[in-house]
C-alpha cells in the first residue's frame, strides 16, 4: 500500500474541499477501496475519512412520503430497519443477499453505489484495463470473461457493476443526493452510473470532490410494497457476486398490472433498468406468457462480450422468474436464504 495522507473532516463542506484535490478519495467503510489499495489497483494520495461526518447515518421519513437514507447508513442496519423492510422488502432482500454478514455490518449505502467492478483485470494492476488506466486496453476482451457484461458494453470495457442493492433502487426510481463544491444537486440513480463507451474510467457522473450524501426513494415507489422480489443467481449461496440478478416490482389492482418495474444486475456496467419490458406489462394480467415476453424484451439488445452467451439466456429466465415471484407477493418474512432460488424452502435455517 502506498503512503497517503489521511484527513478526517468535521463537516461535509470540509470533506468536499479536501476531496476536490487531485488524487483524493473518500473513505467510508473501505470494504472495496482498501482491498484495491492493497493490490495497488487504487493508489490515492489522500484519504478523506467520512465515517465520522455528522448526520449522514439517518433513515428519515420525508413529509412528502419519500424515504431518505443517509449515505453512511450501514447495509445491515438498513436491511433490518422494520419500517424500511416492510415498505421495500426486495431492497432489504437484495442487501441481505450481498457480501457476508461481517461486510454488511461495515459497508455503507453510499459505498455500495460507489464500489468498483470486480472484473479481475481491473483489480490486477499488471493487466491492461481502460477503466483503471485509460488507454491501456482491455484484457478482459479475449480473456476470461464468462461473468462479464452482455448489455451496454463497449470495445473499451466489458465490466459489470457488482451491486445488488442498486438493482432494486434503480427500479424504484431512487434519487442520489450529492454535495459538491458548487453546492448540492441530485441525480436519478439510473443516470448516476455511466456505461463505458469510450471513457470507462468515468464510472459515475460525480465531479471531482462530489460526495454522495443520501439516497431518496420517492413516495410513488411505495405503491409496489406488496409485490416485489429480488432474485440472484450465483456460484455459491453466500459471499459471491451475482452472475445475474433481477428485481421486479408490480403494482397490481383487480388482477391488472397498473405499473411495473424491472431491473437486472450483473449484466452491465450499471444496474440495468428494463423500461421496454415494463411498458409491455402495463395493463396486462400477471402470467407466465407475458412475463416471458417482458423478459425477452429486457434482453432484446443483449450481446455476448466473450464466453458469456449463457448469461443472456440466464438473465432472461431470471427476469421471467422474478416477475412470477413478484406477482406471487413479497414473502411475509425474509427468506432464510435471501434472493436465492432456494430461499423459500420451508423449514430452512437462516444462514444470513
Amino acid at each position: 500500500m502506498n503512503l497517503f495522507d489521511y484527513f478526517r473532516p468535521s463537516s461535509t463542506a470540509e470533506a468536499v474541499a479536501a476531496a476536490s484535490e487531485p488524487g483524493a478519495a473518500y473513505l467510508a467503510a473501505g470494504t472495496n477501496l482498501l482491498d484495491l489499495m492493497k493490490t495497488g489497483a487504487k493508489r490515492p494520495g489522500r484519504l478523506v475519512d467520512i465515517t465520522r461526518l455528522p448526520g449522514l447515518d439517518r433513515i428519515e421519513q420525508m413529509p412528502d412520503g419519500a424515504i431518505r437514507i443517509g449515505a453512511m447508513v450501514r447495509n445491515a442496519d438498513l436491511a433490518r430497519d422494520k419500517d424500511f423492510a416492510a415498505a421495500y422488502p426486495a431492497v432489504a432482500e437484495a442487501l441481505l443477499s450481498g457480501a457476508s454478514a461481517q461486510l454488511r455490518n461495515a459497508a455503507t449505502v453510499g459505498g455500495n453505489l460507489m464500489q468498483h467492478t470486480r472484473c479481475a483485470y481491473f483489480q490486477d494492476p499488471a493487466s491492461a484495463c481502460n477503466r483503471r488506466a485509460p488507454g491501456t486496453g482491455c484484457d478482459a476482451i479475449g480473456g476470461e470473461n464468462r461473468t462479464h457484461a452482455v448489455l451496454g458494453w463497449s470495445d473499451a470495457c466489458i465490466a459489470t457493476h457488482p451491486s445488488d442493492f442498486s438493482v432494486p433502487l434503480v427500479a424504484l426510481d431512487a434519487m442520489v443526493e450529492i454535495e459538491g463544491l458548487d453546492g448540492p444537486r441530485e441525480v436519478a440513480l439510473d443516470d448516476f452510473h455511466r456505461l463505458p463507451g469510450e471513457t470507462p474510467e468515468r464510472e459515475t457522473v460525480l465531479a471531482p470532490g462530489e460526495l454522495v450524501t443520501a439516497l431518496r426513494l420517492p413516495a410513488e415507489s411505495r405503491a409496489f410494497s406488496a409485490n416485489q422480489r429480488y432474485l440472484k443467481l450465483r456460484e455459491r449461496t453466500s459471499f459471491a457476486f451475482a452472475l445475474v440478478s433481477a428485481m421486479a416490482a408490480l403494482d397490481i389492482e383487480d388482477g391488472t398490472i397498473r405499473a411495473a418495474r424491472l431491473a437486472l444486475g450483473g449484466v452491465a456496467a450499471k444496474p440495468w433498468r428494463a423500461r421496454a419490458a415494463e411498458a409491455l406489462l402495463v395493463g396486462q394480467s400477471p402470467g407466465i406468457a407475458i412475463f416471458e415476453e417482458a423478459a425477452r424484451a429486457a434482453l432484446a439488445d443483449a450481446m455476448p462480450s466473450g464466453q458469456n452467451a449463457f448469461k443472456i439466456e440466464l438473465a432472461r429466465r431470471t427476469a421471467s422468474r422474478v416477475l412470477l415471484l413478484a406477482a406471487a407477493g413479497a414473502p411475509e418474512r425474509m427468506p432464510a436464504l435471501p434472493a436465492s432460488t432456494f430461499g423459500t424452502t420451508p423449514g430452512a435455517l437462516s444462514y444470513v
Partner: protein
Amino acid sequence: MSDSLAFPTSHARMGSSSGQPLTRLDGHLKVTGTATYAADNHPQNMAHAVIAVSSIARGRVTSLDVAAAMAHPGVIEVITPANCPPLALDPDQKHGLFGFRFDALQNDRVRYAKQPIAVVVAETLEAATEGARLLAPTYDVEPARMGFDDGEHYDPPAVGIGAPPSFAKGDLAAGHAAATRSVDTTYETPAQYHNAMEPHAMVAEWNGDHLTIDSPNQAIVMSRALFAGYFGIPPENVLLRSPFLGGGFGSKAIMNGPYILTILAARMLQRPVKMVLSRDQMFGPVGHRGATQQHLRLGMDAEGRLTALEHNAVSTTSSFDDFIEPAANASHNIYASPAISTRHGAVRIDTGTPGPMRAPGEASGSAALECAIDEAALACGLDPLEFRLLNYAETDPATGRPFSSKALRECYAEGAKAFGWAGRPLAPRQMQDDEGRLIGWGMGTAMFPCPMFPASARATLRSDGTALVETAGADMGQGAWTALAQIAADGLGLEVERVEFRSGISDLPDAGVAGGSGHTASAGTALHNAGTEAIAKLTEIATADPASPLFGAGNAGVEARNGRLYHRGDETRSESYAEIMARAGMASLEGNGTGTRDPKDAEELAMYSHGAVFAEVKVDPDLCQVLVTRLVGAFAAGHVINPRLARSQLYGGMIWGVSFALHEEAVHDRRSGRPLNADLAGYHIPVHADIPAMQALLVEEDDPYVNVLGVKGVGEIGVTGTVGAIANAIWHATGIRSHRFPIRIEDLIG
C-alpha cells in the same frame, strides 16, 4: 508457549482412552486465540520480509528498481539475484524422494506467475510491502504456455511421489471385445490451490550456525534435515517449531522458495526475520493440484460385470519439475475387472509445480471414475448401488492379494439405509419437491490407501506415576495433539490426564509426515510401542523383585492399567508404577518405539480404507442453480481412536468433495498466465449455506494386520466418492451429464 499441552480436567473417560470422543486438547487454546501459530512469534529485533513476485509467467526479469525500494522509509535490505548468496544445495536439483525444485533467486529466469523475484526486508510489514511494489520490475516476456493445448506433452517417468506411470493386468482388448455394453467418456478437473486458512509463514532466527524456525510444517523432522541441507549445517543445528498448523493439505510438507529466502534474509541481516505469504502469493510457489483430462473406457457383459476398465489421464505440471496428479491410479484397487489398464501423460505449462493436495490423484481420479461407473450402471440398466455390488472386489483387483480388511459392503448397506436409497428411480428427472425443483440422488465409492511412514517415539515413566511421551507430530487441525495422546496413554496403561505429551517440534523423535492419511497410524503405532516397551521393562523389574506382589508373575501374566501392574491370575496382587520404580531406585524409565507394519503383511495384503457416499441435490429446473441438500457417508477405516475427531475429518473431506464438484477452480489468463482469482472472494470454496445436512457414519471394522492398533486413516477418504456422488445426483436430477468440474450453471442451462 509450552511444547506440551495440559488436558482440561473436565474430560470424562471410561476405560481406555482410545475409542473415546475426547474434545480437542488444544481446542480451548484455539478458540481463545492463545494458541501460537508461527506468525504469532515476534522475537526481539525482528524484521519483516515481503516476497516480490513476478507478474509474468515466462521470461526474464530485466530490471528491478532497488534504489527506489531502498529509499522507502523503513526498508533495510533488498535481496535480488544480484546479491543473493548461493545455497549449499542447488535449488534446481531434486534432493530426496520428497525433493522439489524451487525458485530462490538463483537467476533472473521467470517460470510462472507469482514466482519470487526479490525479497524486501523492512522494519514494518507495511514498509516491506510498499518496498516490494516500488521494485517495479520490467521483463523480457515470452509467451505463456497455459492449458492442455499450449503445453509440451510428454510421458512422465513417474506419477505422484515415485509411482509408476502406467499399469496393466489382464487382456484389455479381449475385455473390450467381450463387452456387450460399453462406456467411453472423458472428464476434466481444474487446477486447485490448497488455500489453507493459515498462509505459509515463517519466523527464522540464526544464532551462529544454529537456526531456529517457527513455521507450520507437516513433516517436521524430515523438513529440518532439508532446511539444514540447503544451508550447509547439520540437521541437529536446526530447531523447527510447528505446534499448530492452520491447515496444510499437503502444501506444508514440501520445501518452497519463500521459506528458503526468509532464512537467507535472516542470515544476511543477522536478525530474526518474519515472512507471511499473502493469499495471492499462495497461487504461485507453494504447490497446487494439477488440472487433469481423463479418458475412461469401460466394458460390461450382459449381466453388468466389468470386462475391461481403462483409465488414462493427462495432468499438468510445471516447465521445470514433475508432479503428476496420479488420477488414473484411482481405478486400480476398487472394482473387480479381469482387465485393468491405466496410463498417465503429462503436459508442461507455465505454472508453479503442482504437489500433493488432499487425496492427490484419488480425489480427481475418483471424481472421473465414479461418474464413469454411474454411466456404466445406466448403460446396463442397473441401479448404481447394485452395479457396484455386482462388481465388488473380493480381492485387490490390481494384485489379486486379499484385503487386510474390507467392510465396504457394510458401508454400502449402512449408508444406503441412512440415506434412504431404496426405491430410487433409475431414470433421471423423476423426482421433484413441492416447489417444482428437480431432485436427484447419486452415490460414489470412497477409497484410500493406508500407508505408514517411518516414525519413532519415546515414552518416559516418571517416579511420580506420570509419564512423558514424545514424538514430533504435526497437528494440522485434525487433532493429532489429542488422538496421539490417547494412543500414548493406552500404550502406557495410564489415564490420558497423567500423560504429558510433547509434539510439534523437531528435537523430538521423528513422527514422520502428517500426510497420506497415515499420521495416526504411523506416529500412533510408534507411541504405542514406546509405551509398551516401557511397561515391559517395568514388568521385568517388578516380576524379578521378590519384594513385589508381582514377583514371579512373568511378563505374560501382568496387565498394565490406570498406572498399576496387575497380576493376571490374581487381581489382588498389584502395584503402582511409582512403587515399583521407587523400590528400584529409578527416577525415570524410558521406552522407545517405532511405527511399523509387519513386512510380511505389508507384502501379502492389500490395505485400504473404504466408504460409500450418497448425495441428494436439488436443481432449479429453469435457472439451474444447484444445492446439495443431503450428504451421507459411511466409512470403514479400521479402529477409530477418537470418533469425534474422525467424524470431523470425514465431514471436512466430504465438504472438499462439495467444493470440488461445485465450486473450486483456479482461473488463469491464458495469455499472461496470471491467476485471476487469487483470493478467497474469487476462488470459491463452499460457505455454510452450501453445506447440507451431513452424516458421517463410522462402520465397524477390525483389522489385525494393518498395524498393531488396527488404525487405518480418515484424513482424505472423505473427498473421494463425494465428488462423483454429487455429479451423479445432478445427472439424476437433470438428465445432464457434465464432463467437467466444477459443475456450473452454464453446464446445465443447455
